[in-house]
């Protein structure tokens, strides 16, 4: 269950510029904060599927950052998978993060690890024995079409292959919440459709799925409720 109640997010202005979340305002240096998200209110029951839509700079990535616990809200109350993030002790966050899978736009693979080790990492962090994780990792790598490239390092893979490794890593631990930021950006149409089928299958099995995308065609092919953002505000939470 995900609940946003008057959630706001502000970054220190310098940090916000550094992160590229707000435009550089002609080099002006001010020590105040920049409000990225304002008064977000919505509720997602377990097992829901949502598109996260909006123009560039609308705050989609910031919403995702809140959802995968990279930042805490600076205003309001945020509940993720039943835990109140606003008040949750920091030591309880890692356990919660292990229940959340994320497909990043820039993949965020570990360059010195093989595709197998990248995908296996969430399971190893969760303390899964080697013998038990190998099957799942190999299955997923095979499913994303990389069973012949398990030992390849990310720099030896194409962009599409890296994205498929990132997708496998996000789902290998069977997360309760799956987040994706432009997950089909480097995939051809066939691969994109296979990914969408996987995400819908996960959703059908109970995983809550939130996907941020600009791909209108993809959204049109897979109609589902959408959260529409503009300038840090939620415009609608209605069906697409």
């Amino acid at each position, binding site marked *: 269950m995900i609940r946003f109640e008057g959630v706001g997010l502000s970054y220190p202005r310098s940090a916000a510029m550094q992160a590229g979340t707000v435009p550089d305002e002609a080099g002006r240096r001010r020590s105040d904060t920049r409000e990225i998200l304002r008064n977000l209110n919505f509720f997602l029951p377990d097992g829901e599927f949502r598109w996260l839509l909006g123009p560039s700079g609308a705050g989609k990535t910031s919403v995702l950052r809140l959802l995968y616990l990279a930042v805490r809200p600076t205003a309001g109350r945020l509940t993720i998978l039943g835990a109140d993030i606003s008040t949750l002790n920091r030591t309880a966050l890692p356990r919660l993060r*292990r229940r959340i899978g994320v497909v990043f736009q820039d993949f965020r693979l570990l360059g010195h690890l093989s595709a197998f080790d990248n995908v296996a990492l969430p399971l190893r962090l969760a303390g899964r024995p080697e013998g038990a994780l190998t099957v799942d990792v190999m299955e997923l790598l095979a499913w994303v079409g990389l069973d012949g490239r398990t030992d390849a390092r990310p720099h030896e893979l194409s962009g599409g292959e890296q994205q498929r490794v990132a997708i496998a*890593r996000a789902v290998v631990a069977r997360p309760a919440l799956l987040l994706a930021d432009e997950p089909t950006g480097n995939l051809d149409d066939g691969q994109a459709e296979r990914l969408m089928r996987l995400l819908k299958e996960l959703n059908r099995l*109970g995983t809550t799925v939130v996907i941020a995308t600009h791909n209108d065609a993809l959204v049109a092919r897979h109609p589902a409720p959408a959260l529409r953002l503009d300038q840090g505000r939620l415009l609608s939470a209605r069906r697409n």
Partner: protein
Amino acid sequence: MAQAIAPNKPSPNKPSPNKPGANKLRRRKNLRPAGFDELGLRRALDDRMLPALVAAMAFLAALGLAGFFVAASLARHWQDGAASTLTVQVPDPGLAMEPGSARGETRRDRVVAMLARTPGVVSARALSDDELNELLAPWIGAGPNNGLERLTLPLPGVVQVRLGATPPKLDELERQLAAAVPRTLVESHQVWIGRLATLARSLQACAGGVLVVVAGVAAAVVAAATRAGLVQRRQAIEIVHGLGATDGYIAGRFTRRTTRLAAIGGLLGATAALPVLLGLAQLGAPFVSGGAEAASAGFPQLPALLWFGLPALPVAAGAIGFVTAQATVRSWLRRLP
């Protein structure tokens, strides 16, 4: 596939022959190497620079440790000696006492007899002329044409006194001896030996200070290396943190490497210091009772505690590596949510 990715439900562990990739599982069983390095720390924490710096610190620590133990030993030795011995000088030792004294008793005999009766005195022994000659040989020479035979100086008799656990009051003893045998002097050595012991204690404190400083510098070196590693591997750490790694897990990864590298450095430094310390012990052997014989036999003596202290250096270096890396990484990780 659906079963394998179903949320929060266990999946079968055994490979199924008809599942994709199952034919590769047999050769994948031990895929994770023992030193699995998900943070890439082998590149971030150099396995040459950190051990070399810690080895230099351990070498200095070994010298400081030796100085500490030797100074402590000397101070104890001198203090014990000062408290347990004194010297009594008897001018004109061969002169007979007054006619009332027993059977030609000399002044020296009277002093020795009085000391022997004094409570708290274990033994009182007058040095012979040969012993006096040997004692003065460094200054007046030895042999038939030198030494006491050539001198016409009136040398005093010297009585060596060993004191017990409850020695007599020296002022009172000197007064009694001087009253019975005029001009007798009691020299306790305590002032000089006390000053030497104070000097030795000061040297010991300095050596202890050196050890503390060396430990601090070693901790600073480990902290700097760890911080450099954190900066270099920041992205990997953030990824692993985002995947649900705890602070303890990440700190443990750093700690395992820094502890090992620091312990190796400590071992190298202590090993390098050993021949130096043995050489110094050889040089210092003549100044230690029983040391000269041991040294001449080819076994220079190190303070016994040093044989425990030197092996402890790699352990201490490893402990410094562990504690410093834990503190540094955990402090750094607190900036992450």
